[in-house]
């Protein structure tokens, strides 16, 4: 309820995060403009992953949430990754 002291994120932190996110966006555009084939896919997705991490941690306050919730979020991403991997056991060997 209202009496649980919830964390108030500083405006500065948010501004800094958004700057990081924007520079990462520009970085992706820059890197992928070189047509590096499979490499550019990996890099682009990795950067997207980092961006997602920032959004989850700071914008969505995961940093200040209970361990349980953080574990659950991790679990969802792991589950999803496993589902994709398993599907590709079929597609990769066709």
């Amino acid at each position, binding site marked *: 309820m209202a009496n649980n002291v919830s964390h108030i994120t500083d405006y500065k932190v948010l501004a800094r995060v958004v700057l990081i996110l924007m520079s990462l966006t520009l970085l992706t555009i820059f890197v992928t403009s070189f047509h590096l084939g499979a490499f550019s896919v990996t890099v682009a997705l990795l950067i997207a992953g980092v961006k997602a991490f920032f959004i989850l941690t700071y914008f969505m306050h995961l940093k200040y949430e209970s361990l*349980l919730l953080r574990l659950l979020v991790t679990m*969802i991403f792991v*589950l999803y990754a*496993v*589902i994709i991997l*398993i*599907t590709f*056991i*079929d*597609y*990769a*060997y*066709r």
Partner: protein
Amino acid sequence: MSGNKKNEYVSYLEHQGKYKGIFSWIFTLDHKRIGLIYMYAIIVLFSIGALMGLLMRIELIAPGETIMKPQTYNGMFTVHGIIMIFMVVIPGLSVVFGNFFLPILIGAKDVAFPKLNRFSWWVYITGCGLAIASQFMQNGPPDTGWTFYAPYSTTTGSNVIMATFAAFVLGFSSILTGLNFIVTIHQMRAPGMKFFNMPLFSWAIYATAWTQLLATPIVGITLLMLIAERLFGIGFFNPSLGGDPVLFQHLFWIYSHPAVYIMILPALGVITEIIPTFCQKKIYGYKAIALSSLAIAGVGFLVWGHHMFTSGMSDQARWFFSFLTFLVAVPSAIKVFNWLATMYKGSIDLKPPFLYALSFIFLFTIGGTTGLLLGSVATDVQVHDTAFVVAHFHYIIFGGMGFAFFAAIHYWLPKMYGRMYNMKRATIAWGINFVGFNLLYFPQFILGIEGMPRRYFDYLPQFQPLEVVSTIGGFILIGGLIFMISNLVQGARKGEIAPANPWHGTTLEWQIPSPPPLENFDEAPIINPNPYDYK
């Protein structure tokens, strides 16, 4: 106990609130009333679906056209499947008994979001309405099978869009219910009740709710893609537009395999409640049972490919899925072992709920172990898409989840209505059901091994004798079910007044009067760290 004297308190059945009459039910926020209105809807839908099952059996009593045309038959098994799966067994136990008893079992006054709960029911009814309407719209009932396999579903002329949309809506309701239950279990437990002090039915509901929450969106998006495909000619699954029909099967089963655990986990939970009560004995292996529910739900996410062994998947995928399928059987086995161990040296009272529980173990073992035959690639090649599969899932869904539902209602009816049914009649009805059920479905195992494909309107003459036996079984079963239901209805309306704790159970629902008061607990319940504390 105060349960016997009616005028000491106002039970949830009498409490009127803001609205009167039927509106006091469909606009209620009380989890118990919502549980009941779900149950009424489900019984009606079950009767419709079951009637269709019976009509199919009559059609199959002889080769060739008996009472209907092939197209009618195809529509019939499709709608039978859709009704039974999406409207009866997936919500089934969890919305009826989960709603009614989950909050009570964990010592809460209600679920976490009562309004959302009511909304889920409305969504559910809307979905049912849409599905029923798809029967009567101009293009005729959908005829794709409940699996909606592309590309047939993208090209057939029948009402597929409507039916898939209905399934989408029902899925939405299922997600909301799951969400509600998870939050309820996390946030609403009575002070002092830790996770490992919860009765095991709550654990089962918890595992189920996660599966509902995480698997359903996948089928949601799949059905949306199917609708887009039909409306806009986007060819995700249609090979002539560049799509991939096998991808549809992947997406469909990524949901629909976990969905079978949505059906069975609450059933396993119910049985786990009933056995200790009727043996007057602490459940054996509490932790093993609790964790095996989570294990089934978890591993259950990864085995979907066993429905596609003959679809032309890569060989690697075939062995991998077969391997995982076998692993998922182990936690189910653990539960059965623990149940048997609980019965050891108990003081067994052979009342109808316990009879249903025992027959559940029998039927679930048959259904489950034939699941192993399906999970093994070599044997699945022979019996995939045959009557064997039909027998497997009727055994495990109807024999498992269905019989667990009957067990639950015989167990909890005194609590829900405060009245008792006639024991003798209930026992006789159980006997008829058990015999009819086995007669109906067992022959289909043999038919399947001999090579009788499923979804067959017509068949080769050598299959006829067993088909006849099966149909006769169907008629016996319907007799038993009608007898059972009428006994229950009579009990609920005019039966003897039931005491608060007729079976001498120890879980929280038995500590409050029958029927429960509006907010379940007039004073804060005392939490025993061991929910099954028999002395």
